[in-house]
């Protein structure tokens, strides 16, 4: 299992998930400006070269994050955190990934992509199940910069939420490598909203919330962010986002928490599933051989 995950991390540093590639292809066709065309040409040439030469497609291979949906009956549940850490060490040496982990306060690079609290592992425990889903995410530094969470007065309402998102993106999106995938969390407090906004980035590109109003807001925000005119890499264009995903939780009557996370166009998210016999499938990347 460690080997498979290590190889998958390397693979996902070289090849974007199928849904992201398809969306970029669609946006490339729709952009008409001269600068966007030059940029998309460079982006697609790079994607082909990265796959062909087996190299990380972006030099910033990010901090490795894992989101687990793990059954309590999964045979390796106790070993999981240890083997994920081992997989990161292995992938760093073999791919190679850029060493990106700087210890806080001591301010030195560990050189291994492992450090205090890194790789970051989030758990969703599923009682009575024997499978394990692993979302991998290579989170680059540049697209972490727009990240923000705050708590609004409920009277500001969903118009306030959209103001928060648009103001932040107008200032920060041009530098975060658009077209972006935008994750918005709506909850009660800063940390719940922030966490949901990141989780929203793990959904397939262009999927919609099961809540009808949230889904409508996703569409409206997508139109409005595109209408800002920021375009690929901030040079100006008709499409700034690959999608807007909203995840939500119930809130306190007196608070409206809102969080924002974005991913760059090179959205290196992966999804693995292991059954109890450790048979593996990679739903995000049809080209990966487990």
């Amino acid at each position, binding site marked *: 299992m460690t080997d498979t995950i290590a190889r998958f991390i390397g693979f996902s540093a070289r090849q974007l998930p199928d849904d992201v590639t398809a969306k970029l292809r669609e946006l490339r066709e729709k952009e008409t400006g001269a600068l966007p065309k030059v940029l998309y040409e460079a982006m697609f040439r*790079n994607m082909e070269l990265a796959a062909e030469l087996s190299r990380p497609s972006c*030099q910033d291979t990010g901090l490795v994050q894992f989101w687990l949906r793990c059954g309590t009956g999964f045979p390796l549940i106790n070993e999981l955190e240890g083997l994920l850490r081992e997989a990161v060490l292995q992938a760093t040496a073999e791919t190679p990934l850029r060493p990106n982990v700087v210890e806080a306060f001591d301010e030195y690079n560990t050189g291994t992509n492992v450090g205090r609290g890194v790789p970051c592992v989030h758990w969703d425990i599923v009682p009575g199940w024997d499978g394990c889903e692993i979302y991998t995410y290579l989170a680059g530094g540049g697209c972490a910069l727009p990240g923000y969470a705050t708590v609004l007065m409920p009277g500001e309402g969903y118009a306030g939420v959209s103001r928060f998102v648009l103001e932040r993106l107008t200032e920060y999106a*041009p530098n975060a490598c658009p077209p972006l995938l935008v994750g918005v969390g709506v909850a009660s407090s800063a940390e719940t909203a922030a966490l949901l906004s990141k989780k929203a980035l793990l959904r397939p590109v262009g999927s919609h919330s099961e809540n009808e109003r949230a889904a409508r807001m996703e569409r409206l925000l997508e139109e409005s962010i595109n209408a800002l005119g920021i375009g690929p890499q901030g040079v100006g264009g008709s499409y700034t986002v690959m999608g807007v995903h909203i995840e939500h939780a119930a809130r306190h009557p007196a608070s409206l928490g809102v969080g924002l996370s974005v991913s760059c166009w090179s959205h290196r998210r992966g999804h693995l599933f292991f059954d109890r016999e450790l048979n593996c499938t990679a739903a995000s990347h049809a080209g990966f051989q487990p």
Partner: protein
Amino acid sequence: MTTYKDGRRILSAPLSDDDLRSLRIGDIFYLSGTLTTGRDAVHRRVVEEGRALPVDLRGGVLLHAGPIVRPLEGGGWEMVSIGPTTSMRMEKFEYEFVKATDVRLLIGKGGMKENAARACRDFGCVHCVMPAGCAVAAALSVEEIVGADWLDLGMPEALWTCRVREFGPLIVSIDAEGRNYFEEKKAEYRRHKDEQLARLAKELAFRE
């Protein structure tokens, strides 16, 4: 020196004043010659600690980047992946950095602001951006790593001096007159934002 090949405009480093002054915001070109990578930690050493760079950047090119480099058997280094990093992180230091090093072309990702624009105006310097996330294509334009300095800063922060060929495409973001492409575009984006917020406020009045 400026040459043209297959419709591409190619500038050779070191760049002359004429080369630099011929560049206008929004122009696209490619670079051949030598460049050196440097980002946060390099800027802090030069500006905050007053240390001299071990590389001569006079009239030269600084790339805001932290590459992936692999040691070669038998010595030397191979460029695996290289791409621009967010230039805005260097904004705070850039005027003093350009003044101290006499570097003339800055390459990075995303725009910079008034401090960098003032350096461009005062010293005839240019900032440009290259497509980000295109690190393999860029690495293939690196012919050789000819210098590795300040390796104690770690791989992403060290000074990697590279001989490059037709490195790009590069898009001029701040020209030697101090015109700033991204700041001008941002004024448009802000206008659009106000229009969109008015629209969204009407659409998003959800009640119980």
